């Protein structure tokens, strides 16, 4: 036997062995697809609603129970505005912070962590204190965070060059010259983290709108992250992969599409400090940001109207007529309100307001990226060599973002049966096509895709999977392409209408982060309060 025959044999062996799991996969893996009520949502696009059957009066209506809407409503409630209704399409409020639960643990359906808050975000830190996340009093020089909510060690690992390494920045098997590029990049991010503009403001910060307008930095909003990396001469595929991973992770956008300014924002805007944490630490819970949403919701239960699809909003006699389709009763109802906060994505806002100019602008400037999130209940998994199982487990060059162990923050001894949350931003093609393909894909096809991906790191994954539930987010978040951060489009779309209708959403903030949504809500609530108190 010679070398060639060997190569053939081994190639044959891999082909054959790759058939093996698929034969065994005849076993039906249970679970379902639970898209974010796309069907009901599309009624807005497709259906002509009749006249409303009931009319009620309220002073404020909040449309959308995502983080922006909840944060606005909570602020209004705290300011004594109790004649309020919150309308949301879904059965549960929470938006992208949705979560689920099975016999093992709770798990996230979307966003699953927040970074340590920047220390100037007082209102946000106060909220964290109320939740018990910050344990120190308001007058403490630095906040102390609850140990149970700081992500436990081991936090992250990357499967690269045949082994698991600690951390996500590629180093295992990376040649020295390329490692130096990665180091240079990280150093530059540290420089940006500390940089200030001519106006004295931080070059990069959260919320994005508080950042410096110094053209030295905002010029970065005119090129893509990939172009910027090439300008710097940082061409190693390891760094390109890492940056692309990060922009897909936070913004669902490839690095060759995203604004360089926003790409850098990911690395340079997080500078929170605490007694027991560093800026790179994160806060997380089994149900992800659903835990925080739960705290936002706490006092708001009486205001909730779930499964309510807002069909149109019109202005009549100095008031707003808000017509919504009550899914449970299958009837159109009307609320007449003095003030309204539209805490929905702009492509929905355009349709609700039947505002052709807005629809056109949104269509022209904003793209929404689709995502697939799967929760996997798995038994004992075979492991590859290297760093042990961590909170965030990423595979180099995989189309997915890997998986997060939902059971990681449990203090109990690790059990064989676990919940893994698998994230796949659908950034392969044009969003509309990806969205269509995603909706058409069957449960079996999704499971096969996931198994093929994770098979590299857990050879027995096909047998170990017990259940897979899948969420399709058709319009998960808006893409921060060049011009979104420092162009005018967001301001144009965010302007209140006749001081009665206000907007709050992360697509107006420019990026889909919990903190951005929180402040979107606060600022919209403030506008409502100003208007209402002005009238009294």
């Amino acid at each position, binding site marked *: *036997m010679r*070398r060639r*025959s*060997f190569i*053939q*044999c*081994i190639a*044959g*062996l891999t082909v*054959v*062995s790759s058939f*093996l799991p698929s034969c065994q996969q005849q076993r039906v893996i249970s679970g379902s697809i639970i898209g974010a009520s796309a069907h009901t949502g599309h009624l807005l696009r497709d259906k002509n609603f009749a006249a409303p059957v009931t009319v009620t009066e309220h002073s404020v209506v909040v449309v959308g129970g995502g983080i922006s809407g909840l944060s606005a409503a909570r602020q209004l409630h705290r300011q004594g505005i109790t004649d309020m209704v919150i309308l949301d399409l879904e059965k549960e409020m929470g938006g992208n912070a949705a979560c689920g639960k099975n016999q093992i643990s709770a798990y996230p359906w979307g966003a699953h962590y927040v970074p340590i808050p920047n220390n100037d975000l007082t209102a946000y830190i106060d909220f964290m204190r109320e939740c018990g996340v910050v344990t120190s009093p308001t007058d403490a020089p630095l906040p102390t965070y609850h*140990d*149970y909510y*700081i*992500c*436990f*060690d*081991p*936090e992250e690992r990357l499967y690269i060059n*045949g*082994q698991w390494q600690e951390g996500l920045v590629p180093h295992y098997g990376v040649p020295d010259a390329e490692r130096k590029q990665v180091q240079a990049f990280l150093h530059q991010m540290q420089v940006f983290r500390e940089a200030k503009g001519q106006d004295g403001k931080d070059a990069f910060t959260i919320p994005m709108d508080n950042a410096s307008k110094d053209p030295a930095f905002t010029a970065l909003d005119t090129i893509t992250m990939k172009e910027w990396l090439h300008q710097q001469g940082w061409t190693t595929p390891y760094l390109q992969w890492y940056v692309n991973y990060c922009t897909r992770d936070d913004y669902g956008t490839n690095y060759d599409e995203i604004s360089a300014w926003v790409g850098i924002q990911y690395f340079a805007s997080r500078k929170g400090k605490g007694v*027991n*944490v560093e800026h790179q*630490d994160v806060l997380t819970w089994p149900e992800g940001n659903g835990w925080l949403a739960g705290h936002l919701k706490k006092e708001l239960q009486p205001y909730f109207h779930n499964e309510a699809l807002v069909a149109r909003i019109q202005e009549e006699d100095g008031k707003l007529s808000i017509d919504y389709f009550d899914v449970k009763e299958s009837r159109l109802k009307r609320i007449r309100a003095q003030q309204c906060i539209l805490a929905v994505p702009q492509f929905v806002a355009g349709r609700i307001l039947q505002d052709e100019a807005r629809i056109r602008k949104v269509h022209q400037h904003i793209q929404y990226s689709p995502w697939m999130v799967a929760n996997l209940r798995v038994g004992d998994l075979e492991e*590859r*060599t290297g760093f*042990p199982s961590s909170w965030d487990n990423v595979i180099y060059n995989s189309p997915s973002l890997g998986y997060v162990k939902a059971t990681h923050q449990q*203090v*109990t*001894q*690790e*059990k*064989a049966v676990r919940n893994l949350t698998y994230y796949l931003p659908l950034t392969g093609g044009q969003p509309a096509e990806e969205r269509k393909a995603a909706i058409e894909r069957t449960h079996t096809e999704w499971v096969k895709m996931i198994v093929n991906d994770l098979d590299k790191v857990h050879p027995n994954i096909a047998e170990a999977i017990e259940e897979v539930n899948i969420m399709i987010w058709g319009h998960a978040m808006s893409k921060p392409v060049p011009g979104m951060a420092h162009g005018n489009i967001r301001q144009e779309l965010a302007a209140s209408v006749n001081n009665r209708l206000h907007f709050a959403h992360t697509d107006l903030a420019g990026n889909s982060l919990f903190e951005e949504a929180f402040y979107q809500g606060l600022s919209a609530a403030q506008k409502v309060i100003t208007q209402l108190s002005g009238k009294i």
Partner: protein
Amino acid sequence: MSKKESGAQWLLLTAVFVIATCGLIYELVAGTLASYLLGDSITQFSTIIGVYLFSMGIGSFLSKYFNTNLLAWFIRIELLVGMVGGFSSALLFIVFPMAASFRIILYAIVLITGVLVGLEIPLLMRILENKVAFKELVSRVFTFDYIGALLASLIFPLLLVPHLGLIRTSLFFGIMNVGVGWYLAYRFSKDIRQGALLKVTAILLLAAQVVCFVFSEKIMSFSEALTYDDNVVYSTSTPYQRIVITKNKHELRLFLNGNLQFSTADEYRYHEALVHPAFSSLSKPEQVLVLGGGDGLAVREILKYPTVQQVILVDLDPAMTQLFSRQRMLAKLNDSSLLNPKVRVYNADAFTWLRNNKIRFDAIVVDFPDPSNFSIGKLYSTSFYQLLKHALRPDGIAVIQSTSPFVAPKSFWCVDTTLRAVGLHTVAYHNYVPSFGEWGYIMATPTPPQEWFGHLPSPLKYLNPTTLQQMLTFPEDMKAHQLLDINKLNNQALVKYFEEEWGKYLER
């Protein structure tokens, strides 16, 4: 070409086919086994294939030194390949736990099979060189060679591994190899010298391999038993761990996941040292909590204090506590302490149990496994010790088994640092337990007693007042000599120290 010669030629070509199949199978077995036992399948397969191909080159080179009796040599080699390859996986399974140099044996086997297979093709071509036209010869030999390889690569993953397992697969092909050798010896016995000897050797080998094939299950279990020095008298796998109990004339030992927990020869040294320094410093221990320690041996010592009213034992694994309550030989070791009416056993996760606990205890004995992984590391964190502190009365004392201060001084003092970080006062001490070596413990209390160490109960086999004092002295090689990190859930500093120190120690 006569009909007889043509028959002989085809027979030899069939031999090529079998050799090719068997040769590749042995490499696949070696690669798979190495991946199973050593992990990192990419490296294992890659190096094994490389060594194999290189050895075939050596074999081809050596073939020029064979000048006479080519057919007899060919048959001998056939039998040798059958023997080495056939027994290879059984041998590797057995030597894995015994030999420190498992890799050397593995690569030696790969090298030998490679050399032998590499010898065969050139020899065969020379046997046939005058009987067939050269271009025909090359064409036929290599065709069969490659077809054999393809067959091997297909049946190995599809049929052999799932249905026969590794030991039987290699034996099966050993039998095939030897069978071909025997048939060639039988068929050409007139053409070769010592034909009879070859036939007898072949038959003996065949018999040995068939026996092994039948008893392959026994070989598997023998290989596990060899991991332990003594007879395995009990073994079971629970959802949490593998429990193995071994016994020889003098002592009984308990292993959890392969780690020694105690030996009856000296466990009293460990358990007396774990319990009595803390308990003798308490004026009146009444409410007691034991975390871990499902073997009931610490409870046996605790029950020597008549003031004790209640002992709550929390151990994760019901299989452990049941075994040490019900199994007579084991219950005798702990004086049936787990069946004592003062003792209540809860099978629960210690962290969760402590989080929900409302009782305040006079004494808490923490007897967890060493912090060898991130999961157990949580039970040595500030978050856990905060709960521990909360579960102690102001004058209560907790004692924590804290690994070996000799092997792992940083780990040991990291536990001390972590306890102090949550505001507990600590007293560290150590003693010698022959089965473990030098071992360490740390007492922790919200308010230190007026005086440490009071009256010791009797009977004790190890401790006396002088020994108690001696245990407090730490020689220089059991000190950390550096500022240590506090072990927290989000840094797991202790697991890192532990891995570094024990890893280095076990490398020796």
